[in-house]
């Protein structure tokens, strides 16, 4: 492939085997994400959105079907390889910010870079990214709990960006913010997307979905549009 899509799903099925019976969370999903896209994933609760995002994020592997990340098939990669892939190519943003309470803001942001390099990282690198997400310099050495939700989410975005990932995956990134702060975060995302970051975002909120340029709708584990 000359220029492979950032992400390619081909007939992906995900079954959770449970004692009460198998749960088919994804039932034959195929789609493609190209470089620079901004996609929102919508659907009712339990439809398989988070399952889809986990597969995109290499946190899990499909039961059947194939997933390619920038041309690499993840189906038979080891845990170590998948972890390295997440670290180097994927940024995660969660609904509950999920910063590390024991680390200060700069340490939180540079954490993925420390994982990648295996040693300490110049704090200036963290500061650069934090300034790019418009976080006040005063807050750099605070701990996450001293920040507001919107500020924490900005830090989370900075953390997701530090290793220059191919893809940014967000599971309800504004679900825990008021609409004004949420709009602030979405403006930031749009800005990042304009600069070339590929973004896939799960959301319930039609207003938030308007920031994206394509919407994948999902119901009962199938893409409906």
């Amino acid at each position, binding site marked *: 492939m000359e220029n492979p899509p950032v992400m390619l799903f081909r007939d992906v099925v995900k079954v959770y085997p449970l004692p009460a019976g198998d749960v088919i969370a994804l039932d034959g999903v195929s789609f493609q994400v190209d470089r620079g896209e901004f996609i929102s994933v919508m659907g009712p609760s339990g439809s398989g959105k988070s399952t889809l995002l986990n597969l995109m994020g290499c946190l899990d592997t499909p039961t059947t079907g194939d997933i390619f990340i920038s041309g690499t098939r993840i189906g038979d990669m080891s845990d170590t390889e998948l972890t390295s892939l997440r670290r180097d190519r994927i940024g995660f943003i969660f609904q509950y910010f999920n910063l590390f309470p024991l680390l200060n803001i700069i340490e939180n942001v540079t954490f993925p870079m420390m*994982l990648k390099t295996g040693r300490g990282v110049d704090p200036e690198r963290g500061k650069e990214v934090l300034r790019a997400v418009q976080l006040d310099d005063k807050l750099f050495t605070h701990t996450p709990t001293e920040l507001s939700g919107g500020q924490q989410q900005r830090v989370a975005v900075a953390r997701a960006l530090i290793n220059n990932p191919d893809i940014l995956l967000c599971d309800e990134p504004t679900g825990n913010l008021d609409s004004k702060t949420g709009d602030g975060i979405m403006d930031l995302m749009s800005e990042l997307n304009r600069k070339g970051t590929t973004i896939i975002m799960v959301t319930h909120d039609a207003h938030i979905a308007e920031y994206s340029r394509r919407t994948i709708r999902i119901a009962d584990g199938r893409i409906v549009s």
Partner: protein
Amino acid sequence: MIFWEIAKRNVRIHLLRSFLAMLGIVIGVVAISTMGILGNSMVLSVSDSLRTVGDSVIVTPHAGGGGMGFGSGTTSFTISEQEFQQIKRVSAPNVAIPVLRTSERMKLGVGSEEIVALVYGLDPDDVPLMLNLVEGDYSRGNSGCLVGATFAKDNNVRVGSRISLGKDGEKGTLRVTGIIEERGMAFDVSTDSAVVATRDWFDGTYNRDDYDQVVVKVKNLDEIADVKTAIEKQLNRRETIVDVMDTRKTMETIFEAFGQITTFVSAIGGISMIVAGVSILNIMMMSVTERIKEIGIMRSIGAQRREVMSMFLYEAAILGILGAIIGGVMSFVGGYAISSLMLQTTKYFFVPSSLIQIVYGMAFGIVVCLICGIYPAWRAANLNPIDALRHE
């Protein structure tokens, strides 16, 4: 590295909990180290007081009968000249030293009080083989004698002092020519509180032609058991005439007994360490459980299993190392205190073989902590990232 930093901070924010878990390790280290120090000091002090005797085979008349002699003095059983010659022959080329012994009343100067002390009769040629002097010279003549250090101190005797022996001095007078170095408890001759005269004087004074004991000094320590066997074979062929003691073997037996006591007491310390290990396991499990979500985040943004594992092992190591250091310091103080209180001396404490006990105790504490940290760390590392992330 960042995981070391996180482990450090986690210990710090749960200071009380960490300290309580550490306390167990501290107690375990102190128990093992101080018991080890005590045991080692006891072995050293015993071997010190039984010093210079590990190279002898000691032949005494069998206490149950046989070898009946007709000498005077306190012993009723003796070794005859003929038996001595046999011992000498089978022990050659090692030196066989005949020893004569009795207890005698004596006075140390006119008007002083009469005391009773042991008197040995030894060949002047043999004396330097067994006894070292701190003062004076070995006596060659039959009117000279040596005295033990304790004897000299207690009775205010110096080189040149005269000792009058027997009731009203009827056994004659001896002049002190030298003071014998303190020997402590000994298997061969206990001279600290005794008078050592020449064998000729002893024979003449007490009319003796037999011996109370024979000491064989063995040059090559590997032969010591062979010498013992040879003497037994020669003399106890038909009936048991003599008892033969191999001092090295006896010392080994004593040390073995001490070693067993030390091992036993240290084992109790070891059990306390295992109890401490369980509490470490407990708080490490707690630490993992309350951070499942954090582990999930770390794994999802790219932390490898082994990195998560290392974070928890660091935490266990911090607890172990801190506990071991505190325990080590306390063991040092405690060992010093025990030595000076129970043994009245710290000379057996400030030796490598005692101090290494603290190192053993500390190392054991750290190892226990690490072992007890392995399972929780493994659990943390093998959590499913998705489940961990969903955990609230």
